């Protein structure tokens, strides 16, 4: 029977993590990571993911102080966690702009070696010059060429993993190197790709083993899967050679009502008054600390100019048209009588959240996976370790009862958990 594959995406930053809760663990301590990953392994998860962000987020020139921050180098941390676990996949998000291909390929192959074939690489691109200020060649790669670099970078990594000699001198990748890490039990690290743009989908169809998409809504997920499978055929790949694992959150309750109440509470907690003000400041480019988050939108106009990029990645489609967007918000707030905080909750991109009893969510996911809308989910926790323990102890048994989730690991490599062909 078709099986559901689950991962946890440990972002380590951002408003999704409710650090204000008294039992929220120290998310920078190695002991917390060890506990979380062992719990996930007990829950027979496919993988544990670490996110990447190479500059501490800021708001108007100072370090942004309202969200959790502080995270480790992903490959270093996952190598340490490899020593504490035996089965779970360990996936590092690493960008192709501010890394050297031979260096990154070697470190990923090394993680694959020490974990006995459990490494994955979540391939991301960035053209963010603000992040680039931490690197030797900050901001060197134009936005429209980032997938060109990524394609050459990944092709280089794959060749090095076959222990080939690579000599390349193009205007996006220059190196002379030979691979030298013995292939692991899974051959090479499993490749994940998250980009949803046309360039991202092409990169996924050409190189990725797993896509980490944003499409969890059932109809969108079906359409997305069909689009990707059509692209796969163009590269001579079978439908079974690519898994689709969208990012999602879960809110569980003993009753449907309890789950809905809890979801509403989480959303309010994730958008505190100070966070709502800071969100608007990113668009206004002005100090708005004098405004009441429970009152109406600021009566002053936003500053001209670009959107402040320092709060983390902003999707390309949101980078322009700032003033038009603010005007639309004003209309929305006036029509519906929304406060600043209400408006920010309304317009913040929603994480795709499944809300319900464990049985309800298990039924819904069973439908998704049987219809092949998705192959599984990559879950973003809100509480540490609470969310992870809840999913493993309450949701996993329901999935197992429905026959869509493993009751034991069958293999020892990430590739085997994902039921992917040899890399």
């Amino acid at each position, binding site marked *: 029977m078709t099986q559901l594959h689950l991962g946890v995406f440990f972002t380590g930053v951002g408003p999704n993590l409710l650090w204000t809760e008294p039992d929220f663990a120290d998310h920078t301590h*190695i002991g917390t990571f060890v506990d979380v990953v062992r719990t996930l392994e007990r829950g027979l998860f496919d993988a544990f993911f670490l996110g990447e*962000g*190479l500059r501490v987020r800021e708001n108007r020139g100072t370090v942004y102080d309202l969200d959790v921050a502080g995270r480790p180098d992903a490959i270093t941390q996952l190598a*340490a966690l490899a020593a504490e676990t035996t089965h779970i996949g360990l996936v590092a998000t690493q960008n192709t702009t501010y890394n*050297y291909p031979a260096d990154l390929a070697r470190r990923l192959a090394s993680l694959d070696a020490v974990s006995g074939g459990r490494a994955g690489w979540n391939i991301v691109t960035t053209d963010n010059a603000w992040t680039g200020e*931490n690197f030797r060649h900050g901001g060197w790669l134009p936005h429209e060429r980032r997938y060109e670099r990524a394609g050459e970078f990944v092709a280089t990594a794959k060749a090095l993993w076959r222990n080939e000699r690579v000599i390349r001198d193009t205007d996006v990748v220059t190196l002379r190197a030979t691979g030298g890490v013995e292939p692991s039990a899974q051959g090479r690290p499993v490749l994940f790709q998250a980009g949803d743009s046309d360039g991202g989908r092409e990169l996924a169809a050409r190189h990725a083993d797993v896509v980490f998409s944003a499409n969890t809504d059932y109809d969108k997920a079906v359409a997305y899967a069909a689009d990707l499978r059509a692209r796969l055929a163009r590269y001579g790949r079978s439908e079974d050679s690519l898994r689709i694992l969208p990012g999602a959150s879960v809110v569980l309750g003993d009753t449907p009502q309890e789950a809905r109440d809890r979801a509403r509470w989480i959303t309010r907690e994730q958008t505190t008054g100070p*966070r709502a003000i800071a969100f608007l400041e990113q668009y206004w480019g002005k100090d708005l600390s004098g405004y009441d988050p429970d009152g109406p939108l600021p009566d002053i106009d936003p500053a001209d100019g670009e959107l402040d990029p320092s709060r983390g990645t902003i999707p390309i489609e949101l980078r322009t048209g700032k003033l038009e967007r603010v005007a639309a918000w004003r209309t929305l707030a006036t029509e519906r009588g929304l406060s600043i905080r209400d408006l920010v909750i309304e317009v913040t991109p929603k994480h795709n959240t499944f809300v319900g009893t464990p049985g309800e969510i298990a039924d819904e996911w069973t439908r998704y996976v049987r219809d092949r809308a998705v192959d599984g989910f990559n879950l973003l926790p809100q509480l540490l370790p609470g969310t992870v323990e809840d999913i493993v102890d309450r949701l996993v048994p329901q999935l197992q009862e429905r026959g869509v989730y493993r009751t034991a690991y069958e293999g020892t490599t990430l590739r085997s958990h994902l039921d992917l062909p040899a890399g």
Partner: protein
Amino acid sequence: MLFATEVDAPGVAALERVVLDAERAGYAFVTFPDTPRRPGIEAGVRAAYLARRTTRIGLAPTLHATTTEPFHLATQLASLDHASLGRAGWVVGATTAAEDLATVGRTGAGDGEVADVVEVARRLWDSWEDDAIIRDVATGRFLDPRKVHHVDFEGSGFSVVGPLITPRPPQGQVVVIGSDELTAVLDVALDVALVRATDVAEIATRVAAARAAGAALVFADVPASFDPSLVEGLVDGVHFHGGPPPVITASPHGATLRETLGLPRPLNRFAVTS
């Protein structure tokens, strides 16, 4: 006298046995040799894996200043210190071999580059003060932004704004280890200088020079067959290379590598003393 040894073995399981033996024998730290073109597992990954298989011994991978992004290098070493609960060291690699540089598409490295990379790593390790994470529920502030600093480093070949993405390492500063030639010739600030020589008179001369250049500790870097009593009183310790680590008479480990070495936990350069 303090003892350290290079460790090498084919595969991580064999390496784990060697490092556990060294830990039981009382070695203060082990070093992991590496170059960008060395076959096998990268040194930082070896050290990180072994961080969770050991409890007391210091772990010092070789990372090359010339073939790594300085920001990644500082993050990787800070993360190793967190994963090992304060047992990370860094053997400063400074390869300028053309084939090594070619792996990252470079054709040369500037004279001051190694000193710049060490300096920026040290600044980045201080970029979060120890008490930067406040978790103040009343105000909704997770961080005190006055305690997380831009480092604004401008070197001759590169610049780094900072801060690091990782909180300050448990040791404050990772222990920086390197050849005495780095201090003498390139003006690199080292915690432990390694003098690679076997002639005792030569060792004596170079030890004095390394101390004068500011190295906190100086070790003789000698073959495993070398008799350490020959340099007793002359050096702070001995680092063995090439061959299985010999039997030693060692002092007990501290909670961190700095404690084991008798080095203080450094004050933070960005902290305002009141």
